[in-house]
C-alpha cells in the first residue's frame, strides 16, 4: 500500500490500483453520510476529483493521486456511507483504476513514511 499527503491509500495489483482514504482522513471527516463516486470509464489524471465525501458539516473532495481509467467503483458505499468510518482502509475502498502511468506510485509514501508524516502533523 502507498499513501499520499492528502491521506489517500493506493493498493496496486497488476495494472489496477484500488484507491481509498486512510483511517486518519476518515476520523478527520467525522461521520460520513454520503459518498459520490466517479463513473466507471472516466479517465482521471492526478488532481482530478475522484470522489466527494460528505459529513453533516461539509463536503470534502478526494483527489486522484494517479492517472488511469476507472474500471470499478464500490457500489456498497451508496447504501452504506458509514462504511467509510468503519473500514476506510479495507472494505470502504472508493474506486479501482487501470493505471496509465504506474511510475506515479513510485513518488508516494510507504506505510512507515506515512506514519512518520502523520506524527509530524
Amino acid at each position: 500500500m502507498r499513501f499520499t499527503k492528502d491521506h489517500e491509500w493506493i493498493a496496486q495489483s497488476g495494472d489496477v490500483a484500488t484507491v481509498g482514504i486512510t483511517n486518519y482522513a476518515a476520523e478527520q471527516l467525522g461521520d460520513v453520510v454520503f459518498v459520490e463516486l466517479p463513473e466507471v470509464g472516466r479517465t482521471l489524471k492526478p488532481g482530478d476529483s475522484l470522489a466527494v465525501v460528505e459529513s453533516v458539516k461539509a463536503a470534502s473532495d478526494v483527489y486522484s493521486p494517479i492517472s488511469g481509467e476507472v474500471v470499478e467503483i464500490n457500489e456498497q458505499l451508496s447504501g452504506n456511507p458509514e462504511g467509510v468510518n468503519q473500514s476506510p482502509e479495507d472494505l470502504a475502498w472508493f474506486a479501482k483504476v487501470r493505471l496509465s502511468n504506474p511510475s506515479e506510485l513510485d513518488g508516494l509514501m510507504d506505510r512507515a513514511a506515512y506514519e512518520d508524516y502523520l506524527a509530524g502533523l
Partner: protein
Amino acid sequence: MSDEINLQKTVLHAAHVALGARMVPFGGYDMPVQYREGVLAEHRWTRESAGAFDVSHMGPSFLSLISRTGDADKDHAAVAAVIEPLICGDIAGLKPGQIRYTLLLNDEGGMVDDLMIARPFEPQHQGGLYIVVNAGTKDGDFAMIAAAAAGRARLERADDRALVAVQGPQAAQAFAVMVPDAAGLTFMTHRRLDWQGHELVVARSGYTGEDGFEVLVPAAAAARFWDQLLADERVKPVGLGARDSLRLEAGLPLYGHDADETVSPVEAALTFAISKRRRLAGDFPGASRILAELEDGPDHVRVGLRVLEGAPAREGADIADEAGEVIGRVTSGGPSPSLGYPIAMGFVPPELSGLGSRLKVIVRGKAAAAEVVPLPFVAHRYVRKV
C-alpha cells in the same frame, strides 16, 4: 496557526479541551465544533435526551434606564421607547418576564441582525431589558443600540460571562435538579434565578426546536455550572456542528447565511416578528419597503426544500425551476440526521414557493429534484404551558 492568535476564548474553553473537543474558529472565537462522539451522535442525543451547548460567543447584554421613576410600567415603557426605533417588535407590550424574538433593521428594511429582547420579571429590574444578539454582529449591534440610547439608557455587555444552552426532551428535568424554579417557566419567558448563591438569567428558549433553556452564568461560576450540568447522565456536551444541523431541521434562520442586511423580514419568512402594533403604526426602519412587501409580496422568499435524490445541497447551490433555469440559491443545507434525507433553505420567487412546488438544486453541476416542504422540517417541541 497564525489565525489562532487573535481568537477569543469563552470562559469554558479549557472545559471543552478537557472533554476532547475539536476546536475551530467561529465568530472570532475558538469554539468546539464537536466532542468525541461526533456531530451525528450529538445531534441525536439532543433530540432524544439533552445536549449542553456553550454559546458564550453570542452577545448577551443589559440595557438600563439611567433614571427610573420607580413605577414599573412607566419605566418599562421608557426603556422600550429607547430600543423600539431600531426594531420591528413590540417591546412596550411585553409582560414581565416575557421574551420576544425581533429584528434590528436598517433604513432600507434589511436585517442588521435577529435578536432576543426580554422584559425583566422582577419589579426592581423594571426599566431594564435583557438583549441577546448574534456573535458575528455583536460589536456593530451594541454600538447601534448604545448610540440610540445615549443619554437615556446604558448598555452593559455581558459577553464576559458564560451563556450555556441545555436543549432536548430531558433538558427541563435535568436542569430542574440544579435550579428547581426553572421548571415553572414557559417557552419565551425568563427569570433571574439563584444557583448556589450565583444569580443566573434563565430563559426557556433555544435554537434547536427542542424544549430547553439558555442560561447566563457569572464567569466565576461557569466551569462548576458546566460540570454539574454534564454530571447528569441525561446531558452530554454538543458542539456547534450539531447546533447547526439541529437549527436547520428546526427551520430557524442563521444570520449571515439565511438573512443579511439586504434581506427583509418578509423575504426571510419572518413576518411573525413584525409586531401588529408596529405594523399598524409603520414606525420602524425600512417600513415603506416592508409594508409594501406585506401588501404586494416580496420578489423572493425563504422556503424549506427537501432534496429528493443525490447529494446534499449546501449553501451556495443554485436552485432551478423544472425547466432548468436558475431562479434562486440555497442559503443553508445539508443532511438531516433526524429525517435521513437532505434538507435545505433557500430563496425562490413567490410563484414557485408554494408547498409541493417541484424545483431542482444544482450540486457540483448536477441537477437533482427537490420539493418545497413546510418549515420547520422537524416539529418544534416547545413547552408553552407548565
